[in-house]
């Protein structure tokens, strides 16, 4: 999932003909001054920190400026701020428009219907979860038909738009749908979509691009969220790496098995720390890589729960024993392993003879891991 900052979202919006406020993105206070002086950003203007987190307005990351000096000062003050853990590197300056009403508009996927769904509400400018259900139009759109004229009319009606504003909405909808389909978006959201005079204008832009479509969109590869070095390594190896606040490391294969493992771990008083999900695979190389990666995270104990499909358990066990030898002494941790599937008895025997606690049942394995993390011998 590639979440784009507002200014990047608006670059895409512009390419698709979305009506937008005039503005400029800047990376220094001096650039802000120039942007206003050159007329690229009319005054008065809004100065917005370009961070992914929400709640910028309340958090002081959005300011207003009536003069070039104020704009420069506001940009300078915001740049370099840390907002909810994100450093502000870009600031977006935009003309401040006389807003008559604020609307909500988005398109996302409705998994149950297996259709894209457009959502529209006349109650925009607030978090949409807080809007009453009855105030939100949900319109499934068939990909083979696209966003039809009659659907557009329904949306305009739900938003209370007629005449020029409805025609202006039509441009917005064409852009919204085009971006969703052609940019492989998971979400395109405009909140607020502002009614300004006889037109509607996208004041904010939230665009999330689907990771799986990155082979079609190399242009988004450089704009991924910041990741820690460990997360980056995990990503390259296609291992899901998630940091929680506990002290037990979990390595499992497959999202369902990983979640079930965490569920049982918590049930028996364990606190999961890092967990690594290898995906559906039991590739012994990947097991080894995950093991080495885990050692970098310095867990109090590690529980490894692999259900073998293709590979035989003895092969996985041998790889694991080899990997253990590669871990430097200061990074070693107590390990409880559970390897199920083909040839599981041999696998268990190999691990046990290498001194690893290797159990058969999920419950007893988890209990052993919890005990190990608490300082007991696993």
């Amino acid at each position, binding site marked *: 999932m590639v979440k784009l900052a507002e200014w990047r979202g608006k670059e895409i919006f512009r390419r698709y003909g979305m009506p937008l406020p005039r503005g400029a993105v800047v990376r220094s206070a001096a650039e802000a001054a120039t942007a206003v002086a050159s007329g690229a950003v009319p005054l008065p203007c809004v100065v917005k920190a370009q961070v992914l987190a929400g709640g910028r307005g309340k958090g002081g990351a959005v300011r207003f400026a009536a003069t070039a000096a104020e704009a420069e000062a506001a940009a300078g003050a915001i740049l370099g701020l840390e907002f909810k853990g994100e450093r502000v590197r870009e600031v977006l300056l935009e003309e401040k428009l006389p807003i008559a009403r604020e609307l909500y508009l988005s398109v996302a996927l409705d998994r149950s219907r297996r259709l894209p769904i457009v959502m529209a509400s006349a109650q925009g400018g607030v978090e949409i979860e807080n809007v009453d259900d009855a105030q939100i139009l949900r319109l499934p759109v068939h*990909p083979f038909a696209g966003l039809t004229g009659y659907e557009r009319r329904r949306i305009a009606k739900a938003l209370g738009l007629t005449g020029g504003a409805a025609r202006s909405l039509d441009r917005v909808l064409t852009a919204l749908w085009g971006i969703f389909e052609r940019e492989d978006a*998971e979400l395109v959201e405009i909140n607020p979509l502002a009614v300004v005079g006889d037109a509607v204008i996208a004041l904010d832009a939230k665009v*999330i691009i689907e990771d799986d479509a990155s082979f079609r969109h190399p242009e988004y590869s450089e704009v991924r969220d910041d990741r820690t070095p460990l997360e980056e390594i995990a990503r390259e190896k296609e291992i899901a790496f998630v940091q929680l606040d506990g002290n037990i490391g979990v390595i499992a294969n497959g999202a*369902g098995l990983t979640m*079930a493992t965490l569920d*049982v*771990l918590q049930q028996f008083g364990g606190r999961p720390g890092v967990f690594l999900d290898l995906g*559906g695979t039991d590739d012994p190389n990947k097991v080894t890589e995950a093991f080495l990666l885990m050692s970098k995270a310095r867990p109090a104990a590690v529980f490894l729960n692999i259900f073998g499909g293709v590979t035989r358990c003895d092969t996985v066990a041998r790889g694991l024993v080899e990997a253990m030898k590669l871990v430097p002494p200061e990074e070693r941790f107590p390990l409880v392993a559970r390897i199920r599937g083909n040839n599981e008895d041999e696998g268990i025997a190999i691990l046990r003879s290498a001194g690893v606690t290797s159990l058969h049942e999920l419950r007893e394995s988890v209990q052993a891991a919890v005990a190990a993390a608490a300082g007991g011998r696993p």
Partner: protein
Amino acid sequence: MSVLIDAETRIVVQGITGHQGTVHTRQMLQFGSRVVAGTTPGKGGQTVEGVPVFDSVQEAVDRTEANTSVIFVPAPFAKDALLEAVDAGLRLAVVVTEHIPFHDMLTMYHYAHAQGARIIGPNCPGIAAPGKSKAGIIPNVVFRPGRVGVISRSGTLTYEIVNGIKEHGLGQSTCIGLGGDPVIGTTFVDALPLFEADPDTDLVVLVGEIGGTAEEDAAEVLRTRFSKPVVAYVAGRSAPPGKRMGHAGAIIARGKGTAASKLEALKAAGAEVADFPYEIPDLVARALAERGRR
């Protein structure tokens, strides 16, 4: 009888010459599946594990009367492979490939649906009817013929649970791993009626996960048009509320999607709910015994 596949099912493996395709062709053959053909463009004329390889699905169908496809081709080409299977007249395609963009899958699903073809998956372990046939990648070792149906959104967790059923001395009629992607070709709602109609299934184990509303939708089917006992498990009760789709996702789901919501819906619909996977075999055995007494 079994669900969707049986001993007569004639399988073509798309992407048979790749590593995964080859490994699982061997496994399927060992399971007893009739893998009659494989395809890889440009590699027609070869054989893999004794199975003839063709350049196109149409040739495979013409020459071997294949009627079901298992797709292993890489994600960028998976949509094309599925359309090829549907256009060649196949009525069932198991898409094992992971990381297919959901926009592609929207096209795949609605195209197949319009042509009357069914997709299992993508990103799924596929389907197996022990003693009859397997179209997919679930390990052979977990199965044993029996009368328990399994429908699951998970991969390896399915193996774990199916294995648990076997180790408890029970067996499976048919097991379907639906896949956990945002858009899947066959959902619980689609699969449940197949098991309801299957005379060889006495009970269904339903394995869900947090996220989406598939389990809540399934509960509605259980409540209104499902007569067999159901044992359900939902993974992820310990996970913090997910935020994958942000605000818009939240309003699509509207309070559904959590483990609590799913478990409550399934319980209300009469399912026996397991809190942890290892509780499933006992619950299954008890429900079967109760059914036997009635």
